[in-house]
Every structure is written in structure tokens, then in C-alpha cells.
């Protein structure tokens, strides 16, 4: 009895709302009973946690709960509009959780709470929505975060492409952790946690009718566990970023330009799967620019690079980690690839999307 009285969380209300139709209609965004049924049946059921269960207009998080993890709040937001919604190795729901978790984690923060805001096109199948929400739940569990607030909107057919998700996340950065692009120094080693380009290729293969069988799955995964392990092995990590759109080439250019240093890459050491290389060769694309959804690039001081690499490789999210280059005080703001063939070239930012070459 006394245990029940001291429990801080509000009791989870019994839900009666159920959605009975097969497709989303404008009524589900109308603010009335249909919307409430949708939220209670699809979202609250899946994300079940005491903060969400209060169904207030906002999530209420005790400051003490945050403060026990560190001394700074990390706060980020991202919108997910991937096409197709389901692809080999994942779906938009998993992406929406992992992407925001990773944006928090690369600051060294412990990701804690997420919001989930969904824009649905009328006519969207309820079964697909359930499938996406279920994978958000699994991803949140895997990353150890709670989805504590959210919103749904339904727009007319044609006003959105099936379903968009926005997630916002908060996390807490432990005292003493200071990861910032300005901390890059000449001599720093550059690490990635595995094969690059898998997500971009999986999406490309799922989207385009290439007439090729590409045995590649998206690399979507949470990186917070890996980063925690990395920081234990090498607390003085200088820079961390997850390489999503624009690939590792874009992240490395951001590092080079913000820190006004030169990044030197060694082509032979960059982990790229054979199938990704093959597709890139066939289409005239470059894996350095393919999107990733579970890959980080780290700049660490040379003296702890070996420890950092070993720690990453020992973690399931970093089995194929590698040191791919180092920072120097060469031409400032540039990324130079030392090719396997023995030459050198600049790796620049992309202007737009990568476009396949004609011949």
C-alpha cells in the first residue's frame, strides 16, 4: 500500500478509444472523437509511458530527473520525409527515432525524451501507420528513450506525400564532456564506426527501378550506446557528428571548414561494402556522399586513437570501425583524399544531389 502512495508517476488511464476503419480520413485530424481514438489506439497504446499517459498538452519532466545525468540540456529536432516509407533494413519510424537520438548523442548527451509529430495524408492505411508506430516503439526501447508528447495532423490528399514525421529530442550532457568542432587539432585521427553508404544505397535501390538486385540494408541504428563506450575509452574525443544526408564527405568538409584545418583521408582504409562500391562504379556515384543513418565520424587525439578504435570495434554498432585519416595543418578548409592509386584529389561538398553520369 505504501509503495502505491509514494510512486511519483500518475496512473495510466484505461483507454477505450479504438480505430475501426482501414484508412485515415480528414476526421482523424478534426480534433473530435475520431482524432482522440487515433491517438489513444495507435500512439498511446504503443508508446505507453506515464508522462504521455496524462494526455496533457505538454510533457512534464521533473528537473531533478534531468539534472541527475549532467549539467547541460541538449535539444534537437528533425523531420523525416523518406520515400519509400518502408525500405530494406528499416522504415521511416525507426529512422525518426534513431535520427534524433543520434543528433543528441553526438554531443555526448544521454538522450532521454522525444516528441513525435505526424502529418498524415488522407487515405493513408491505418495498418501501415500501426507498423510505423510499432517500429518507433521498438527503436525507442532499443535506444532507451521515451516518446512523451506528440501531435497528429491529417491533410487532404495531395497536400503531403503519405506521411511525414517530426521528432524533437532532449538529452543531458554529463559534466566534463566537451565535444565541439572547434576542438579539432592537427594530428587528430579520424574514425568511422563501420561501412559507409549502406542507407543511401538501400534507399536508391528501393526507389529506382534499377533492374539490379542490391543485397544492402539500411544501417539505421541508435549510436548513443556506442558513443558512451567511446567516451569511456577516450574521454577527450574532440569532434563527433553523425554522417546522414551528404554522407561522410559533407561532415568532413564541415569539420575542415569550421576548424579551419585540413582533413586527409586514406582511401584504402575507408570501409565500403563490395555491393556499395559496385553500385557506385556502375552508376558513377561516390559512396562518400551516400546518406548513412547509423554512422558517426569522430576526431580523436592521436594518443587515444587505438583505444577509441578498440572500444568501437567491441561494440555491436561499431564492429567494422576504422581509422580513415588524420587532421593536418595543410590547405585550410579542405578535405584531401589520398587515393588507393597513389594520387590526390579534393573531396568537396556536393552542390545538389548526386546525379548518375550518362556513360
Amino acid at each position, binding site marked *: 500500500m505504501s509503495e502505491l502512495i509514494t510512486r511519483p508517476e500518475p496512473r495510466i488511464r484505461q483507454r477505450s478509444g479504438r480505430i475501426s476503419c482501414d484508412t485515415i480520413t480528414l476526421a482523424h485530424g478534426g480534433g473530435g472523437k475520431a482524432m482522440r481514438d487515433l491517438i489513444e489506439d495507435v500512439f498511446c497504446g504503443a508508446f505507453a509511458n506515464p508522462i504521455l499517459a496524462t494526455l496533457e498538452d505538454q510533457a512534464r519532466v521533473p528537473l531533478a530527473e534531468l539534472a541527475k545525468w549532467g549539467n547541460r540540456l541538449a535539444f534537437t529536432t528533425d523531420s523525416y520525409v523518406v520515400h519509400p516509407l518502408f525500405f530494406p533494413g528499416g522504415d521511416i519510424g525507426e529512422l525518426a527515432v534513431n535520427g534524433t537520438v543520434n543528433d543528441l548523442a553526438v554531443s555526448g548527451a544521454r538522450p532521454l525524451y522525444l516528441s513525435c509529430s505526424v502529418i498524415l495524408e488522407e487515405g493513408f492505411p491505418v495498418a501501415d501507420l500501426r507498423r510505423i508506430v510499432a517500429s518507433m516503439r521498438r527503436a525507442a526501447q532499443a535506444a532507451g528513450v521515451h516518446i512523451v508528447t506528440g501531435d497528429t495532423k491529417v491533410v487532404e490528399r495531395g497536400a503531403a506525400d503519405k506521411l511525414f514525421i517530426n521528432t524533437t529530442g532532449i538529452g543531458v550532457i554529463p559534466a566534463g564532456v566537451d565535444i565541439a568542432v572547434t576542438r579539432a587539432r592537427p594530428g587528430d585521427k579520424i574514425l568511422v564506426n563501420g561501412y559507409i553508404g549502406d542507407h543511401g544505397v538501400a534507399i536508391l535501390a528501393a526507389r529506382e527501378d534499377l533492374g539490379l538486385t542490391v543485397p544492402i540494408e539500411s544501417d539505421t541504428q541508435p549510436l548513443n550506446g556506442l558513443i558512451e563506450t567511446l567516451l569511456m575509452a577516450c574521454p577527450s574525443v574532440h569532434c563527433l557528428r553523425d554522417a546522414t544526408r551528404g554522407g561522410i564527405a559533407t561532415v568532413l568538409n564541415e569539420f575542415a571548414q569550421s576548424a579551419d584545418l585540413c582533413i586527409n583521408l586514406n582511401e584504402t582504409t575507408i570501409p565500403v561494402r563490395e555491393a556499395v*562500391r559496385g553500385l557506385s562504379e556502375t*552508376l558513377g556515384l561516390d559512396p562518400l556522399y551516400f546518406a548513412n543513418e547509423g554512422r558517426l565520424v569522430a576526431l580523436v587525439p592521436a594518443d587515444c586513437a587505438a583505444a577509441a578504435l578498440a572500444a568501437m570495434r567491441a561494440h555491436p554498432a561499431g564492429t567494422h570501425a576504422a581509422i580513415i585519416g588524420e587532421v593536418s595543418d595543410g590547405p585550410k578548409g579542405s578535405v584531401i583524399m589520398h*587515393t*588507393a592509386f*597513389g*594520387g590526390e584529389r579534393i573531396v*568537396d561538398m556536393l552542390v545538389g544531389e548526386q*546525379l548518375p553520369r*550518362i556513360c
Partner: protein
Amino acid sequence: MKYVDEFRDPAKAAALLKEITSLAMRNPVCATRPLQFMEVCGGHTHSIFKYGIEQMLPDSIEFVHGPGCPVCVLPMGRVDDCIALAEHPNVIFATFGDAMRVPGSKKTLLQAKAEGADVRMVYSPMDALAIARNNTGRAVVFFALGFETTMPSTALTILRAEAERIDNFSVFCNHITIIPTIKAILDSPEITLDGFLGPGHVSMVIGSGTYEFIAGHYRKPLVIAGFEPLDILQSVWMLMRQLEDGRCVVENQYQRVVHDEGNARALEAVHTVFQLRPFFEWRGLGSIDHSGVQLRETYARFDAEKKYPVPNLKIADPKSCQCGEVLKGAIRPWQCKVFGTACTPETPLGSLMVSSEGACAAVYNYGLIDLGQILKQRAAAVDASPSAQPV
């Protein structure tokens, strides 16, 4: 990766470079000026920059990046025609990816798409035909471009469309042919070329015999080259050997793909469907006789130019643009007045800045050049000559 890594072996590259360097040291021309070899094909330009081959060679050997990027040499007026076709309300306009960013006089296909035109990226003309098959109520226009490399696949697609009686499919034909253009470059007075890397994929179709006049009449050695970095180095070595021996012939380094007689079936399809145009406009080079092809009268119903009204306007290249001089090797990309300032990959003024196969884009993106230094030198040159107009 099998069949690829063998052609990127750094140890073999080092051995070839050693040989090339000693050949260059013995070559009397190298004492006075760099030897200039033109790689005709855009695929070679791409490889040269991607693998950093130019920096590996001795300074006494330079590549001149030739006219072999079909996207780059497409004149603005033709891009405007594409956009007019794409904006036709019932048209689905199918194109290769890298043509989407080529600037017309007002916009690119990418911008036209954003404004509502139905522009779709395809990987082959057969993909475009499949779109036509699946959209019988719409008219599908395929933007056909490229040299003899892509010509056979367009021809075969038209033959297939004919066989299947798919009448909502047509082709906006911008195929061009390489030989008259090489000839035009060789006839140009500014040329100091010492040899050619001949195109690999084009030669796979047309064979190697076609180039004899380059060695015979113009006295320039030519080596048909593959696209892997060792292919290119070996071809340079073969050119250097010809110069050393005082020979001037057509040689074939790319024997694993190119046969002397070419591909008879591909050529047959091309001849069935296409005929030479009297002349065709090239961006940067002007009009060149018999340098383009069009559909024969028999296939007029697949010819988008005959099916739809196109503006067909001739639009002059921007005055400040020096693409023509770069294409002929008269100046190097970074010596152009607007390189890196008015003309960048974000805002390409000249065609060579557009495709990654374009010489200027390749230098800008991949080249180890100090842009700041070049701009400083250029500013100093303008200051020093009071009559010069800033660009």
C-alpha cells in the same frame, strides 16, 4: 573488387610512372614546353581527376580536356527546347540524371521540374519506353544525348517501340558524333596537341579504324584508352613511346573492350534509325558540319522535334565564357576569366562547369589548385593593365 582493383594497382602505377618520367626526360620537346595530350572523352577527364593522375605525372606532361562530355557541349538553345517539351502539359520528359542541372537560357530541367513539369530521371532509354508503356494516356519524350556510346541504345529503343507499336513514345535527339569534332579541333589554328587518348566506349561501337586520318593526315599519335587509372597511365606511356620512336599510329590500349571493327550490330541499329544532320551546334565550339544525327524519315513519328513545336532558337554562349578555348586546349580551365568567380558548380555559366565530366567542374571539385592564389594573380593582372575590363 574483382575486375576493377586490378586496374588500380599502385605498384604497377609506380612502375609505369617511372618509365613515363624517363621517357619525358629524354623527349626534346619537354625541355621547351609541356607535351599536351588531349583526352577526348569526358569519362577520361573524370578518371584523371578522381584518381589524381595529373599530379602523378611529371610537370612536362599536360592533359587537355577535350569535347567528349555530351552534357557539356549541348548548346543552351537545345536545353531551352528540352524545357519547352518538358513543360508541355501532357508530356512526361525522361532524361539521364546529369542533364538535369544543365543551364538553359532561363532555367534548368531541375527548375522546370520544381515548377511542375513532369521530368523523370532514367538510367536507360528502355526505362523511358517502360514509362510510355505504363502511361498510355500521356506522351513520353526521351532526351537522347551522347556520342556513339549511347546512340545504339536509343536506336534499339526506337526499334522496340516500333515493334511494340508504342506510339506515345518519342525521342528528342541530341546525339552527336565524335569524328567531325576531332577534325574541327585539329583544323583550329591554336592547337599545339602532341597526341590523343582516344575514346574507349565510343570506339567499342565504331572500332579503331576510323581514327586513321588523325595519325595519317594530321600526324598526331592516338591511343584508344580504357577508363581505369592504369589504363590511362599505360596509354600515356604508349603515346610517349610513339613520340620517342618517331612513330605516329593508332594504337589500342583498351583491347579487352574495343575491337578494330567495332560492334557491327550496334552500328547496324544506328544506321537503320539515324542519319547525319547537315550541321549541329556545339556549345563552346560553334556549328560543326555533319556532327549530329537525327531520326530518319521512316521513324519521324518517334521524333519529338517533328511531333511538338520547339522554339529551336540559337542562343549565344555568354560573352565572358571561354569554354571553347578550354575545349581546344588553348587555355587551361583555371585560366578562364570567370573560373571560380562568376562560374562555379553552384552557378555554372559555361557548360564545362556543369557535369562532373566537364573539365572545369572536375578541376574545381577535384583539382588540387589554390583558388585564392589564382584569384589574387588575376586581380593583380587586371590592376597592372589599366585597359583591362574587370569581368
